């Protein structure tokens, strides 16, 4: 049976989540990809290498094609086992609209999908990843499931170029047009791929003092992360947000500076190999996931650490 994977193009390539979801799709059936973007041989070959048998490509032009993609998918997925989405913004837009169109439930924040007594069940975690919940999907196939990032490893299978099918842009009353695209310049290593992530929270005090975090990340060759509170306060751009509504990271070492550990943050970093936390409050929830917790003032600890790393670098 067919299993669909939704894929939004990012800079000419498939979204990383789509490649991860293909791992699961192969296990469940025959993977088809619904691709939103211009596409090209490079992108399609990458999808084929990860197991996609066919790719249906919708080129949105200047549209934000949430309604169009949902309509086109609704026409295609009738006999499929499942439609898998990531947490990307367009992923969630299309998943919601598709589910409403097909009158199906959506299982969100999924970490796994499996078949149980002939029905689909998804595993998720709630309350900051402290409880694992298994939900049965009590509806006809296809199951519509939105997965958290890094739920599965992306794996190449050696597949060749998939069959590519053009999807004409469906008519809709819900037309949205993209007038301009703005990209904020990014420095340093990719947050989602970095071996070391140094994240800062409100405990840093203000945007000026958040620089300590950037300095430490720089010395360690790591990436800078931040909590939602810090992003909302405008100290750093959203691209640096780690957590439920931001990025999910699993670095070798995660250093949480001045972060209390709200659930929304914990879900984005708790699977890091080693977690170091520095916080004034001995009762901060971040200490419950820390391998090393330092109860103290970040403005005392970080400068000393930075100084020590500098002298090592010179020595």
């Amino acid at each position, binding site marked *: 049976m067919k299993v669909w994977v939704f894929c939004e193009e990012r800079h000419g390539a498939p979204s990383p989540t789509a490649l991860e979801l293909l791992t699961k799709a192969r296990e469940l059936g025959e993977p088809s990809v619904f691709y939103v973007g211009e596409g090209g041989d490079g992108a399609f070959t990458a999808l084929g290498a990860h197991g996609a048998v066919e790719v249906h490509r919708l080129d949105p032009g200047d549209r934000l094609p949430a309604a169009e993609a949902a309509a086109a998918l609704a026409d295609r997925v009738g006999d499929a086992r499942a439609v898998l989405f990531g947490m990307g*913004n367009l992923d969630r837009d299309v998943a919601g609209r598709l589910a409403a169109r097909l009158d199906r439930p959506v299982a969100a924040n999924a970490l796994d999908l499996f078949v149980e007594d002939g029905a689909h069940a998804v595993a998720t975690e709630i309350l900051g990843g402290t*409880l*694992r919940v298994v*939900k049965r*999907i009590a509806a006809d196939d296809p199951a519509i499931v939105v997965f958290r990032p890094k739920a599965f490893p992306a794996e190449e299978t050696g597949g060749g170029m998939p069959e590519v099918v053009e999807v004409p842009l469906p008519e809709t009353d*819900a037309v949205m047009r993209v007038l*301009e695209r703005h990209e904020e310049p*990014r420095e340093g290593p990719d947050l989602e791929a970095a071996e070391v992530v140094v994240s800062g929270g409100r405990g840093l005090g203000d945007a000026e003092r958040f620089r300590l975090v950037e300095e430490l990340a720089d010395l360690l060759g790591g990436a800078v992360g931040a909590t939602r509170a810090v992003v909302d306060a405008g100290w750093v751009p959203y691209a640096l947000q780690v957590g*439920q509504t931001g990025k999910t990271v699993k670095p070798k070492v995660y250093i949480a500076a001045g972060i209390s550990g709200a659930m929304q943050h914990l879900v984005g970093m708790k699977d890091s190999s080693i977690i170091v936390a520095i916080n004034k409050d001995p009762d901060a929830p971040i200490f419950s996931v820390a391998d090393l917790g330092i*109860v103290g003032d970040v403005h005392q600890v970080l400068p000393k650490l930075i100084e020590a790393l500098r002298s090592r670098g010179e020595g």
Partner: protein
Amino acid sequence: MKIAVCAKQIPDPATPYDLDPDHHWVVRPDDQVLDDTDRYGVEIGLQLAEASEGTVTLFSMSPAGTLQGIRQALAMGADKAVVISDPALKGSDAAVTAKVLAAAIEREGYDLVIAGTESTDGYTGVVPQMLAEHLGVPSLTFAKHVEAADGTLRIHRQTPEGYDVVEAALPAVVTVTAGVVEPRYPTFKGIMQAKQKPVEELSAADLGFGADDVGAAGSGTVVEGVTPVPARQAGEIVEDDGEAYLKILEILERAKVI
């Protein structure tokens, strides 16, 4: 402009809550507050209404019949509220929630529907999009800036690398991120006035839903089991004595990242 703002009442995130051992629902204390993320939607609604001599109507599902959080939003300045207050709604999933809200909003009439990107307690993050599909209108989502003029809505839509400027004709649904505006605090006068503002309470049946269409019965996902996730092995917690940074250095060395 006739503005509908979706507002969710949730247990105060500061108070711990429990899971019902039989149904695995989150047991909500009677005391519920306005979801913090909805304050941004209310604020945007008020600003757009002020600029267009419009009105702001709140829409909320309240299986427990509580109104405390709605009063908070009314105190900020919203004109009135439509609350689908019905025990039959208990256990409703995102799909049912979207259908019920769509029916209530359609019944009232609207030019613009504003919602948060996701609730703090459930965070499915797809209800507004489902709502838009039921209403058959555009869904301008993840807005960090919103402007409305001459029957069109223009937003700055958050992207992983920055933002896109996206435009659509009204009527439409827009979802706003936290931080889009600074929500106002209710004034004393606002709090007093909120007690007098109209709150229309509807049942699911008033909107044409049968008992099997809503609540747990109408929902397509059934929680089967909840198990604790094995906690990470307890780490070492030390009080900083001025030398604690050395312990971080040790860990960095052991992990071979320096």
